[in-house]
């Protein structure tokens, strides 16, 4: 079930579920009672108003099983589907409460019902629904938390999912709360975390097992229904009642839908049009829940039970068979907007993100706190607390949609390529669009794959083993990186006052990062375009140069060195700005000291840091033996910017796109050795980090490639990440280099809040040093 759609349309869903069901129940009950009063219902049906209300309450609930079964066939557009399906899920609470209330009224006898009982009934509605939801959420939390630790016992993951979800159901049932709501909320709440935490195989197992079980359960239910229909001792027929019920449920549902939609359309962005309403009212199928409830009636208390049972059976059969069968032709005839199951294109994914950002920006310009605002706040909270608590660290970093899309596209391409008889290993000039021609595909050893996928991509080792080609894995790694890297659209600051005093927050780190980039760009736009061009080009160049080092350490150093350098070249204003934001980022980065913090893109003080980040990211991907130009000296670095040389950029870009096989071996060995040697746990970061500050500014540049030993810090910082990545450990890796980078930038910051003032001064100093270099 698509959760985002569900929450987007939650208002509509709740309206239909609660108001709609109540409306249906009352009107049907009253209408039937009126029918009886009018004499159309045989007098042998002894039922009073309350009995009819009871009957109305149980017959009015739309059944999720039936809806799902039918709509899955029909493939209407997602909004329509989610509204009907969501309604059927959430109306369970209303149905249960109504049923119980009416039942107890009937049992008490209508004479004894008092006003307080009505109030109690209404209160119990809230208790049942919210209580059920709360139970579900508790179990969702438990489930997410336990799956976080199942890395070594993958086999029990599906079991955990089933058991805890079922436990949620049972618990709610025990407490007489709404069990369906509990299970729904459990699923909704834990989906994101569990999906990230459990292995791919477990995911598949859960999915298909659930589908099978659900099919079985549906079948059994309807079999029971059918058998009961045949067993005539259980029911008694009354035509008036049956026909009346059929008519009324259809009529009142349609009426209810129309009325509610009219109200809802005042508030919705995309109104539900008439055709949607037709489908919604026609798609209100009753199912087994109604049957189960009617069977449970106490014959002594409700003498008309048998008639009700017969009516219910007929109603259920009618809605499921007649309505269910005809809804597909109806949908086609009415030309309902169908769901477009298109293959996800990278374009769409990317543009969707762009639009999200644009919308957020425009909302900011207009000064509007809309739905997006609250969504953002929730996502902020989630990112800050929940995800870190509930998601495995390695999974935490790798979440993004564009990545998934790209990954799938590439996998598809690779598979189709091989299917067409192509031999990947020999493909020099692949026609696959997104592939830069890479010879590295030739290396398909596990370590190579590990290396590449160790880019921080949390690919299970199992997954790695099953992937067929190195390229796939590369792509997968790339995808994961990109995914994790995409900025989430608009966040809102809680305190939008000074830019300097923002709390540690991943989102805010991203914000700072973006802010840095923006500031930088703005300043650049001040300068000549030439500088702009060369700047942007030199960015990749620097990155590449950084990460083209043959060992991770040098990279770390180099990258650390770069940012200060870059800053030095900019206006002081920019520097100061970046400083301040950096300090914020360092603050926030401190919170991510632990490996658990996996936000890759966080804590980039400046865009240079960003570069570093990218470098480190790429480092993790492949501490690969790319040929790099001799470590650029300060002077060299200055040159491109000042003189606007594009050649270096060109040089770099060609480099980047090619993996030079020659050096591969050496690079390989180096990376492997660094992986082995740098298996030191990340905790050593902390001490090393403090040592960073003296290094970066002046020293990095000249030091670049080979000084592994000279900088134990960086060796620590980097290799752990590499090692971890390589070993598919779910420890954070990207953080380490990031933090490293931050550290130097921030100067001697210990891992506590630094006052902006000192930060500034540190920064400025460092920048000056950089510029002097």
């Amino acid at each position, binding site marked *: 079930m698509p959760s985002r759609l569900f929450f987007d349309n939650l208002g509509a869903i709740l309206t239909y579920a609660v108001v709609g069901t109540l409306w249906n129940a009352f009107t049907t009950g009253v209408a039937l009672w009126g029918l009886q009063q009018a004499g159309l219902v045989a007098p042998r049906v002894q039922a009073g108003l309350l009995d009819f209300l009871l009957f109305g309450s149980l017959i009015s609930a739309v059944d999720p099983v039936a809806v799902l079964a039918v709509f899955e066939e029909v493939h209407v557009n997602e909004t329509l589907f989610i509204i009907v399906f969501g309604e059927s899920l959430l109306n369970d609470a209303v149905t249960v409460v109504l049923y119980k209330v009416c039942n107890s009224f009937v049992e008490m006898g209508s004479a004894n019902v008092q006003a307080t009982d009505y109030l109690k009934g209404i209160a119990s509605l809230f208790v049942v629904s919210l209580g059920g939801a709360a139970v579900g959420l508790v179990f969702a939390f438990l489930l997410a938390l336990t799956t976080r630790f199942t890395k070594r016992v993958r086999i029990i993951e599906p079991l955990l999912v089933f058991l805890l979800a079922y436990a949620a159901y049972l618990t709610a049932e025990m407490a007489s709360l709404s069990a369906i709501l509990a299970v729904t909320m459990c699923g909704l709440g834990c989906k994101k975390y569990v999906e990230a935490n459990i292995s791919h195989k477990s995911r598949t197992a859960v999915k298909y097992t659930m589908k099978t079980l659900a099919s079985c359960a549906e079948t059994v239910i309807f079999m029971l229904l059918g058998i009961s229909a045949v067993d005539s001792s259980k029911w008694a027929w009354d035509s008036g009642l049956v026909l009346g019920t059929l008519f009324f449920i259809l009529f009142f549902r349609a009426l209810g839908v129309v009325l509610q939609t009219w109200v809802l359309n005042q508030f919705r962005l995309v109104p539900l049009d008439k055709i949607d309403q037709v489908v919604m009212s026609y798609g209100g199928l009753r199912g087994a829940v109604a049957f189960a409830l009617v069977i449970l009636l106490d014959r002594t208390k409700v003498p008309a039970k048998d008639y009700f049972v017969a009516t219910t059976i007929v109603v259920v059969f009618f809605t499921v068979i007649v309505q269910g069968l005809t809804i597909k032709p109806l949908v086609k005839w009415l030309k309902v907007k169908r769901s477009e199951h298109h293959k996800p294109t990278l374009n769409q994914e990317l543009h969707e993100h762009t639009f999200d950002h644009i919308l957020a920006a425009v909302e900011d310009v207009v000064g509007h706190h809309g739905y997006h605002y609250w969504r953002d706040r929730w996502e902020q909270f989630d990112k800050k607390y929940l995800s870190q608590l509930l998601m495995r660290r390695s999974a935490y970093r790798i979440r993004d949609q564009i990545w998934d899309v790209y990954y799938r596209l590439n996998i598809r391409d690779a598979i189709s390529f091989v299917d067409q008889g192509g031999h990947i290993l020999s493909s020099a000039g692949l026609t696959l669009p*997104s592939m830069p021609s890479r010879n590295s595909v030739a290396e398909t050893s596990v370590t190579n794959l590990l290396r590449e996928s160790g880019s921080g991509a949390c690919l299970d080792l199992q997954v790695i083993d099953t992937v067929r080609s190195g390229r796939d894995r590369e792509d997968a790694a790339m995808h994961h990186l990109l995914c994790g890297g995409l900025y989430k659209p608009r966040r*809102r600051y809680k305190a939008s006052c000074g830019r300097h005093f923002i709390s540690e927050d991943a989102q805010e780190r991203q914000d700072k990062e973006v802010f840095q980039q923006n500031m930088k760009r703005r300043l650049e736009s001040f300068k000549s375009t030439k500088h702009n061009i060369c700047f942007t080009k030199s960015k990749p160049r620097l990155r590449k140069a950084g990460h083209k080092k043959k060992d991770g350490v040098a990279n770390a150093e180099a990258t650390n060195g770069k940012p200060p350098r870059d800053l030095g070249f900019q206006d002081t204003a920019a520097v100061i700005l970046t400083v301040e934001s950096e300090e914020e980022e360092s603050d926030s980065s401190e919170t991510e000291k632990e490996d658990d913090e996996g936000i890759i893109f966080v804590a980039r003080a400046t865009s240079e840091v960003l570069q570093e980040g990218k470098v480190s990211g790429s480092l993790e991907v492949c501490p690969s033996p790319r040929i790099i130009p001799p470590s650029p000296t300060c002077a060299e670095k200055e040159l491109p910017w000042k003189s606007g040389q594009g050649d270096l950029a060109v040089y770099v870009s060609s480099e980047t796109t090619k993996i030079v096989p020659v050096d591969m071996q050496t690079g390989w060995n180096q990376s492997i050795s660094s992986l082995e040697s740098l298996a030191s746990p990340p905790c050593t970061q902390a001490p090393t980090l403090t040592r960073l500050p003296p290094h970066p500014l002046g020293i990095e540049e000249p030091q670049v490639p080979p000084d592994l030993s000279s900088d134990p810090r960086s060796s620590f910082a980097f290799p752990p990440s590499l090692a971890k990545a390589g070993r598919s450990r779910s420890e954070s890796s990207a953080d380490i280099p990031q933090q490293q980078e931050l550290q130097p930038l921030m100067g001697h910051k210990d891992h506590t809040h630094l006052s902006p003032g000192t930060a500034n001064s540190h920064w400025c100093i460092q920048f000056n040093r950089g510029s002097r270099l």
Partner: protein
Amino acid sequence: MGSRSSHAALIPDADHIRRETGFSQASLLRLYHRFRALDRNQKGYLSRVDLQQIGALAVNPLGDRIIDSFFPDGSQRVDFSGFARVLAHFRPVDEEDSRIQDLKQPEPLNSRMNKLRFAFQLYDLDRDGKISRNEMLQVLRLMVGVQVTEEQLESIADRTVQEADEDGDGAVSFLEFTKSLEKMNIEQKMSIRILK
């Protein structure tokens, strides 16, 4: 309310703007108040600095580009009508509007084509009517965090352009852009309800 009507009178060219953008009176008034609030020194127009003051925009990856879109043709000032014109792109599409298409009138600003054109212009910085691979790469770089390497970005940019590019010129023209997004519900994705 009485005050509202007197405020409405303050909006210069209110009728003209309303006709052009299609905003309701209430929305226009709201926008005008916002315009005035953003215009710190009561200059009567907005400059880039004013828009950059919006804190949240600074941390939006596309913030700068959005700000630039308010200043078409390189001007440095935007008056209220220009402000409203840009924001009109984000008005939700009215059902009635889409049906009653008066062929003589220009397309309303919030039509799907115009929304797409707005988005297209955000990508196409040099206004040559095409999104080159470089421009795509720049946008990607904007939107992606630091841990993605340049090569990966480049390959993604390559692929993106390749997917959309039909005539093989290595760039995405506006038509190709719209075609690649034909399945996306632009009317919903690029609308802000409050601007109805």
